[in-house]
Each structure stands twice: as structure tokens, then as C-alpha cells.
């Protein structure tokens, strides 16, 4: 039991940093960059994504002994679609104004490589609980990056945080429109990937230097 817990914790942490889908694998950025110019929209999108990834993983894992290998991809896609439809319906009724903007992107959570990636790489080989945590970790790690992108873009692009204006904005802040537009997302993400990789390389070099003089 203790080993299961350790394994589960390892799955969660590995997914959140070591194998962070965006920094390390640069996967699944498709559907989500477009919504990161406002923090609240991003938060909703991330909530939907975490839910869909974790639930797809746990279901794919629970069904793993009953799913023929040949059709497992289509089964995973259909599972993901079911959970995304739930999210879509909830957003449509609770946040109609935002759903008008991010609606198509919510549907695109299905083709987010992370869901299929985790289901395929981890869930079909492991028990439901670790699979759930693995999916949760992947979703949270991904959401963390998106929120960071949004936290940079919204203040720079609109001068607001979660829709609230920065104090005395008119006096000192001129909105940086490019950050609210698509190119801004590319630049911010590129700089973040750059920083994360440089940091990882430095860690790697430090580790090698420690091991070398033996």
C-alpha cells in the first residue's frame, strides 16, 4: 500500500514538473494559447482541462482490461468527448458570455494531446488511482503554465488582473496591445520555454559537475 502511495505521488509530481507537458514536451498548446489573454477565461479553460484529463485517465484505466488494443484510441477519444461535453454544457449555462468567446476552444480540449498522451502512456498500464493522479498532475502542470502566460499577458495587454484594473492605471500604464493579440502569446510562451530549458540545462550541468571528479 505504501508503495502504491509513493508511486501515486511520484506520478503526480513527475507530471507537474519533470515531464511538464508544455516546457518539456511542448505538447497540447494548440487549443489554449488563444484564451490566455484574459486570466478568468484561462482559469475556466484550465478547470475544464484538468477535469477532462483526470477523468479520462481514470476511466481509461478502469476499462483497460476490457478494451481491445485495436480500438483503444477511439475509445479514449470518445471518453474524452463525453467529459468535455459535460464541461461545455456547464460553461454554456453558467458563463454564457464567456462561452461565446471560448466555446470552440472548450470543444478542442478533446484533441489536446495531453489527454490522449496520458491515457495512452500511463492510464492503460496502471491502476485507476495512480492514473487519476497522473492525469491530475499533467492537467495541473499544464494549467500552471497557462495561468502564468495569462498572468503576464492580461496586465500587459489590458492593464487588468482578473478583470480588475490596476490601481490608478490611467496615470502610469499604457496598454501594450500586442500582448493581447496572437503574436503576444507566441512571444511570452517562447520566453518561458527558453527560461525553463535554460534552468533545466543548468541543473543538469551542475549534476554532471558534481559526479565528474571521482
Amino acid at each position, binding site marked *: 500500500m505504501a508503495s502504491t502511495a509513493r508511486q501515486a505521488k511520484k506520478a503526480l509530481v513527475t507530471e507537474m514538473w519533470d515531464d511538464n507537458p508544455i516546457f518539456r514536451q511542448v505538447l497540447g498548446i494548440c487549443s489554449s494559447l488563444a484564451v490566455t489573454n484574459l486570466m478568468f477565461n484561462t482559469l475556466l479553460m484550465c478547470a475544464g482541462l484538468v477535469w477532462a484529463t483526470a477523468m479520462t485517465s481514470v476511466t481509461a484505466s478502469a476499462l483497460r482490461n476490457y478494451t481491445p488494443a485495436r480500438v483503444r484510441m477511439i475509445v479514449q477519444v470518445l471518453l474524452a468527448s463525453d467529459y468535455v461535453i459535460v464541461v461545455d454544457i456547464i460553461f454554456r449555462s453558467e458563463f454564457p458570455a464567456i462561452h461565446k468567446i471560448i466555446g470552440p476552444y472548450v470543444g478542442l480540449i478533446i484533441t489536446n494531446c495531453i489527454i490522449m498522451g496520458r491515457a495512452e502512456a500511463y492510464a492503460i498500464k496502471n491502476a485507476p488511482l495512480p492514473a487519476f493522479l497522473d492525469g491530475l498532475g499533467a492537467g495541473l502542470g499544464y494549467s500552471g503554465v497557462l495561468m502564468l502566460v495569462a498572468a503576464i499577458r492580461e496586465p500587459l495587454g489590458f492593464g487588468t488582473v482578473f478583470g480588475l484594473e490596476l490601481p490608478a492605471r490611467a496615470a502610469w500604464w499604457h496598454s501594450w496591445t*500586442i500582448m493581447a493579440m496572437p503574436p503576444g502569446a*507566441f512571444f511570452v510562451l517562447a520566453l518561458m520555454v527558453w527560461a525553463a530549458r535554460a534552468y533545466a540545462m543548468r541543473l543538469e550541468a551542475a549534476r554532471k559537475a558534481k559526479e565528474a571528479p571521482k
Partner: protein
Amino acid sequence: MSAPATPEAAPALHLLVILVSAALTDNILLTRFLGMCSFLAISRQMKAALGLGLAVTFVTTITCALNAAFYWALLAPYGLESLQLILFIVIIAGFVQFLEMFIERVSLPLYYALGIFLPLITVNCAVLGAALFMVNRNYGVVESTVFGFGSGAGWMLAIILMAGIRERLKNAQIPPALEGPGITLIISGIIALGFVGFSGMVKP
């Protein structure tokens, strides 16, 4: 079949506007960020980029037409719009599978040339994305087909531009941590900035 808001006989100019805006001003990759994964992974070589671009254009055009037809015939009249995701994903996956089998039968060289790209297309969000945007904008079947073609062609244009630039970059000195995805994202940003210049050319 009396679907609401399906403008039948759409005038040619209207279709041209949809085509140009889908390919240039609303480029599905550079302004909507769809199909980024394969864009980042496959844009290293011109030949591969061209093959994938053609395959995506073809699949997007056909699946948009199919999706629109099934959506307006099966879902919209009965208020089943919430099932659109399942319908679209099944049609796309089914069509790609069919296409793969068909090409394998008809032309083996083409099958080997496209082979690895076809399965990738099922999870290319540009294909599903085009279908979702066309519903969002209430396009009919003809408009959707044009929109699908425009989106696919725009995607192909972007990946070919990127492949050309990246082939040149092989000789450039890039900070090691920025190599690969980092520099590709920055270049995408600059290309996207260029495409912003197209906005205002047509009013969708």
C-alpha cells in the same frame, strides 16, 4: 431539413471573402493557435511540411463538408447540438481511417509518402477546430466547404513558411536552450505579426 440560418445560394463574393479570411486574416494556425503540435514537430523539413500541409488541406476540406452536412441534417433539426463534438470526432477519425485504407489500395507510393502523416491528422486540432468554428459562425454546407479549404490552405501556407525558415536556421547560431520549440515559437510570433497586417483587408 429546414435548418435555421443556413443561407443556401451563397453569392460568389461572399464565398471569396470566407476563403480569403480563413486563409489569411484569420489564419487558423497563427491567430487561432490550432494544429500547433504537428506544426512544431514536422516543420523541420520542407518536404515533410509540404506533404503534411497537403494532407491537412484535403482532410479539412472534406471533413468540413461532411460535418456540416451531418450537423444540419441530423443534429440541428432535433436540438441535439450538444452532441456535435462526438459527431465531428467520429466523422474525422472515420474519414481519415477510410482515406488511409483507400490510398493504400490505390497508390502504394503515395501511401508510404503520406503514411505517417495521416494518423497524425486525426488529432490535429485544426481539423476539429475548423468544424467547430464553422458551426459557431452558422455556415451552411457550401460555405463550410470553402471555409475548410481556406483553413487548410492557410495552415499549409504557415507550415511551409516555417519549414523554409527553419531550413535556413540550421546554419544559425542559436542559444542552446532556445533551440527547437523556443525559436520556432518566436518565429511563429513574428510571422503572426506579419499576418496581422492582413487584417482589415476583408471584413468577414
